[in-house]
């Protein structure tokens, strides 16, 4: 009975016409030539146990490579005994985001406040070290943790600047308006990699010779400024979606420019663009690995280092597949979550 259903179903969906059948056969062919070899390589004939490259005797993937280098891929050259500090800061982040799902709307603003203003300080103290904890200089940071740190730093610090730029672009004051437009269009018009190069080699020339700004910090600032232009455009979209009545109502209550924006306009505008901000963050997360090109020990940098190790030559595939799996999972789930948010807000509007 079930088989009959299956046959009927495939007749309707896959073999309804000659052209359709050809397409289906082509798809089945594609799946057959790609999927079984991949599963065989990644799981069936892969090696999971062992400590050395010589333990991998089968034809499949040598996951021993990833296992041995796991800590380096994740944390770079961060001292092993202090890794719990990175883990703890990410745990705080995840918990506070998770908490925002369960509390009432009224408290969500406090969580947002905590994330923007207090969390960066806590995370910095934990990761960099202070108050008697061993200090870990930022050049020792690395791996996937560094990617996330820079991406999260970028999005948090680009947010206030981005909001100001969005307001500036809609301002009636010509200098502020055209300054904001030029600023936004400039950063949106150049690739991130040139910003990274500028932060790495050009920026030190622009500061007094005796001041030293740490390279990681320079790059983080570069990313934050770059990203603020994108945030500004997202927020501007939200500002445009508000009806003029909101401005008129706020003004008729006697509110000034800042009071009106902070209490009436921005809360509504930002709420509508939360999915857009999430998408910007996902794009940033996928762009951050670029820091490997200016010599940061980011996860791809660590993989490039590990695959050049004489004991582990020829392990590039495993390393890249591992990194790809992590990025894919994070990016996919974040984007499906932001899509859900988008649907939620678009139904609320209706």
């Amino acid at each position: 009975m079930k088989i009959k259903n299956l046959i009927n179903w495939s007749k309707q969906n896959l073999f309804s016409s000659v052209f359709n059948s050809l397409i289906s056969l082509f798809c089945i062919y594609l799946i057959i030539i790609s999927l079984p070899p991949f599963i065989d390589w990644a799981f069936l004939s892969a090696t999971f146990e062992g400590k050395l490259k010589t333990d991998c005797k089968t034809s499949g993937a040598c996951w021993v490579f990833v296992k041995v280098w796991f800590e380096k891929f994740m944390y770079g050259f961060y001292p092993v005994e202090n890794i719990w500090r990175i883990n703890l800061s990410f745990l705080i982040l995840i918990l506070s985001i998770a908490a925002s799902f369960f509390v009432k709307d009224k408290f969500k603003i406090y969580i947002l406040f905590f994330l923007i203003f207090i969390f960066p300080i806590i995370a910095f103290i934990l990761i960099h070290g202070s108050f008697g904890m061993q200090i870990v200089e930022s050049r020792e940071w690395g791996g996937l943790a560094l990617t996330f740190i820079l991406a999260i730093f970028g999005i948090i610090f680009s947010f206030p600047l981005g909001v100001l730029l969005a307001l500036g672009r809609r301002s009636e004051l010509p200098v502020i308006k055209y300054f904001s437009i030029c600023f936004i269009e400039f950063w949106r018009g150049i690739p991130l990699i040139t910003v990274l190069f500028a932060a790495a080699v050009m920026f030190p020339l622009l500061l007094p010779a005796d001041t030293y700004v740490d390279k990681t910090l320079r790059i983080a600032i570069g990313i934050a400024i770059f990203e603020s232009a994108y945030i500004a455009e997202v927020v501007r979209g939200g500002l445009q979606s508000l009806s003029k009545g909101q401005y008129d109502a706020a003004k008729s209550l006697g509110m000034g420019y800042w009071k009106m924006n902070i209490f009436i306009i921005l809360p509504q505008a930002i709420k509508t663009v939360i999915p857009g901000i999430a998408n910007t963050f996902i794009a940033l997360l996928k762009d951050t690995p670029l820091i490997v090109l200016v010599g940061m020990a980011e996860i791809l940098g660590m993989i490039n280092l590990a695959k050049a190790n004489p004991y582990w030559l020829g392990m590039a595939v495993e390393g890249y597949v591992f990194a790809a799996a992590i990025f894919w999972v994070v990016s996919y789930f974040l984007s499906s979550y932001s899509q859900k948010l988008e649907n939620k807000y678009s139904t609320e509007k209706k």
Partner: protein
Amino acid sequence: MKKLSNFKNNLSKNLQWQNFLPQFFLLLFFCLLIFYFTRNAQINLLARNITSGFDFLSTNSGFDVQFSLIPYDGSFSFGRAYLVGLLNTLLVSFFGIIFASILGFIIGISRLSENLLLSKLSLFYVELFRNLPLILQIFFWYFVVLRNLPSTEKSLILLNFLIINVQGFYFPKFIFTNFPFVLYGIIFAILTIFLVKYYSNKMFYNTGKYLPVFKLSLVFLILFPLIFSFLGNVGLKFEQAKLIQNFGIFNYVGGVKLVPEFLALLFALSLYTSAFIAENVRAGILSISKGQKEAAKSIGLNNSLSLKLIIIPQALRVIIPPTTNQYLNLVKNSSLAAGIGYPDLTSVFAGTSLSQTGKAIEIIFIVMMTYLSISLFISLILNWYNKKIAFISK
């Protein structure tokens, strides 16, 4: 005292202090920042014995690049190196845009296919390629796929046309004699097409009938260059790459060689961008309500005419703006070439030239301005197009 307050009143009326002050302070802050940076840069450069200015553009570069569209070696100037990089950027962007558009269009249509298997496979394609960092994809194509191709002696040869090995892809070179005649043929065909189009429009207004302009244009475009090349005695020869042994090392010489760096970048850019374009195409087609199709049918348009006159123009209006944005992203993303050493603008100029001359400020400035000009140029075209379609919609 009274005078002063009067003066103040006048000023606040005329200049509106409230509006003037923030603008003034912004300008002041900006100017001070620029002054501060320039001052520091001057001191720093003096201390490092680096002269500033763009004179270096005409001095000998002293480095070689492995892939260039124009003749170049170490004896040419840095200005020439800039040109080499810019041309390489434009080359990979041009082909990337073409491949990404074709792939994106096919995948986008497949996403809407009634065939469940096909639509799910396309969904998998889109989700796979757009959720992975581009730099990772470039590394994967370069270090994993292209580095593991067969060695020169064991090259794959497809149809005696394409030779694939670890050194790159080799195509035969087309060598024309009397090539201008082909161009004359193309120009003649285009002129004829304009004429036919004009007559077709005239006929349409007079009699309500029209000529199949598109099919005729295709015929002209193929036929006239062929006739002209026959008349002008145009010859075409293929120059296939040849395997040559030199000191025991095999090498292919001649033909058109595409280096693996170029191929890795092209593959990664095309696949990554095509995933985004596919989503745009899908959204564009979905945006057209069923009523439009039914309305087209009810006024007696057949299937192909309703597609041509009703569906596609409206879908394009939704598809083209975000897709142009993707083209822009592709051009900017081509700068990731620096990761695998494809000599594009960033890697030749902001990489090699910068480390040779140490002129960080000038070089980064030139590179940023170049990308900015390309971006602004593309957005200018987009704005022009948006205005044009906005006019039609009224």
